């Protein structure tokens, strides 16, 4: 009986011992920092750490590898002998490094995106100016083809930026720049006169002479500045009214012959007032004048225009709206034309110049481009 009791006590004791040993030998769980770090590394890679901070990412990876190897070594030990304290510490350091790296990557990404956006904005400003100029020129077809393509690519750049594909966005902007350069070359050929100081000085002189005459003779004068799309009425040498105008389909060019859709430049006068024209009221000017005829004949002689080409005529200041392009006439909004029509008598001098501004917008655009190219 006694033996049985001792035996039962021993069995119980063994059982308790086994439970105790089992509990104390239980394998400690791997520290959560291990999983966190591995997930963090994936996030960093997805965020583009290898691209935006390659050196720092490499160092981080190396530290992560070391920590992982250390963890693996610990894992090889029998559960009871495992101690994850150092592992935890190493992974915490890696996580801290990863957090700093994340901030660095975000900062560099923001910087890259900012640089690309700034480049895009400056190219878009060029595009916008060329787009507006191209509408006023004959060679618009060629320049606008390039500009339309550039516009499509601007939209692609926006998408690439949204997707964080900065390299591709940069490449796309290079293609945009090339298209803009091609468009610019076409436009430059049309706009060279506006960048020529001697030509601008000649226009300015012509305008000043006419204003002086208006002052001396106490008379009215109409001065049209094509580049600024501005018609100014002078009285006694002083501006009394200014209107925004539309020009010829090829408005910035000087008219040479019929059908070129250019607006003539020179000194003219109102020769007829037309009360009821196709485009509301109209003031007919004496294009072609002597200068125009001379220029036309020279061009014919030099073979610039064919023998059959005619010089054209019927150039008016008329209504119909400043937003529509004409075949060479100067167009105003109907209500403004009505006002001008009432104000201007037959015989009023009309001077049409390219521009009188020696620092006009074309010069600022193209000279600005030149500076940018040489950088």
């Amino acid at each position, binding site marked *: 009986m006694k033996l049985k009791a001792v035996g039962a006590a021993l069995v119980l004791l063994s059982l308790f011992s086994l439970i105790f040993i089992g509990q104390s030998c239980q394998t400690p769980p791997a520290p959560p920092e291990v999983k966190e770090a591995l997930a963090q*590394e*994936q996030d960093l*890679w*997805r965020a583009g750490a290898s691209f935006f901070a390659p050196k720092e990412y490499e160092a981080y990876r190396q530290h992560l*590898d070391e920590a*992982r*190897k250390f963890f*693996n*070594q610990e894992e090889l030990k029998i559960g009871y002998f495992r101690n994850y304290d150092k592992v935890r510490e190493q992974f915490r350091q890696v996580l801290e490094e990863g957090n700093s790296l994340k901030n660095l990557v975000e900062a560099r990404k923001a910087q890259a995106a900012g640089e690309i956006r700034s480049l895009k904005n400056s190219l878009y400003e060029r595009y916008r100016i060329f787009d507006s100029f*191209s*509408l006023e020129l004959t060679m*618009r*077809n*060629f*320049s*606008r*083809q*390039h*500009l*339309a*393509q550039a*516009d*499509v*690519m601007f*939209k*692609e750049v926006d*998408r*690439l930026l949204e997707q964080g594909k900065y390299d*591709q966005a940069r490449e796309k902007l290079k293609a945009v720049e090339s298209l803009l350069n091609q468009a610019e070359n076409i436009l430059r050929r049309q706009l060279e006169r506006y960048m020529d100081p001697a030509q601008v000085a000649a226009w300015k002189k012509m305008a000043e002479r006419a204003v002086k005459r208006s002052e001396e003779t106490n008379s009215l004068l109409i001065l049209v500045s094509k580049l600024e799309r501005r018609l100014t009425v002078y009285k006694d040498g002083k501006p009394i009214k200014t209107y925004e105008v539309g020009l010829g*389909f090829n408005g910035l060019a000087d008219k040479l012959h019929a059908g070129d859709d250019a607006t003539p430049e020179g000194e003219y006068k109102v020769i007829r007032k037309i009360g009821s024209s*196709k*485009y509301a009221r109209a003031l007919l000017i004496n294009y072609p004048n002597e200068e125009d005829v001379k220029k036309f004949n020279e061009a014919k002689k030099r073979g610039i225009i064919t023998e059959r080409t005619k010089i054209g005529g019927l150039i008016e200041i008329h209504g*119909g*709206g400043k*937003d*529509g*392009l*004409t*075949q060479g006439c100067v167009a105003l909004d109907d209500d403004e034309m009505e006002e001008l029509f009432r104000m201007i008598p037959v015989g009023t001098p009309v001077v049409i110049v390219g521009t009188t501004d020696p620092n006009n917008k074309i010069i600022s655009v193209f000279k600005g481009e030149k500076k940018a190219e040489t950088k």
Partner: protein
Amino acid sequence: MKNLMKLSVLGLLVVFLFTSCAKQPTQQINDAKAAISAVEAAGGNIYAKVELKKLNDDFNAAMDEVNAQSKKLFKKYGKAKEMLAKVKADAEAVKALIPARKEEAKKNALNAQNEAKAAFEEAKALLEKAPKGKGTKADIEAMKADLAGLEAQLNEVQAAIDKEDYFGAKDKAVSIKEKANAIAEQVKAAIEKVKGKKK
């Protein structure tokens, strides 16, 4: 003495068995590498970027295990072999995903291309119908030139599809569609302008 000799021989045999049985798993390494290369060749860098990265990481972890074991006296490559086998199996699974993803990208690019073409054709048709008056002639000429530019870009969409750059093709096609729609709106506005004047 005899017993000692027997024990020594037995010991040597055991050591020999341990070391000779624990050769580096070269075959498994090569298989896993080949499986990852196959994923890359199938377009993994484009269509399974994240998965490919994980495969490479897992492979590197397996190689770490191989290297760790190779430095030990008693090498156990069992775990490394398991890891490498998993890499291989995962790579095969990833490779199997790619054709469907590629097909999906192609489908999206072709849809976008068709939509861009339709928007282009619509703008073109509108432009042909537009009244070429004094006030609209210039606008119409300009828009024709714009459409010519879009046509050139549409050709580039096809070129991108031919090169299997489906994401690039889709982005371009969507941008073309937007521009074509904008031109169509301009044409409509020009038509309205003429109508307004006639009233």
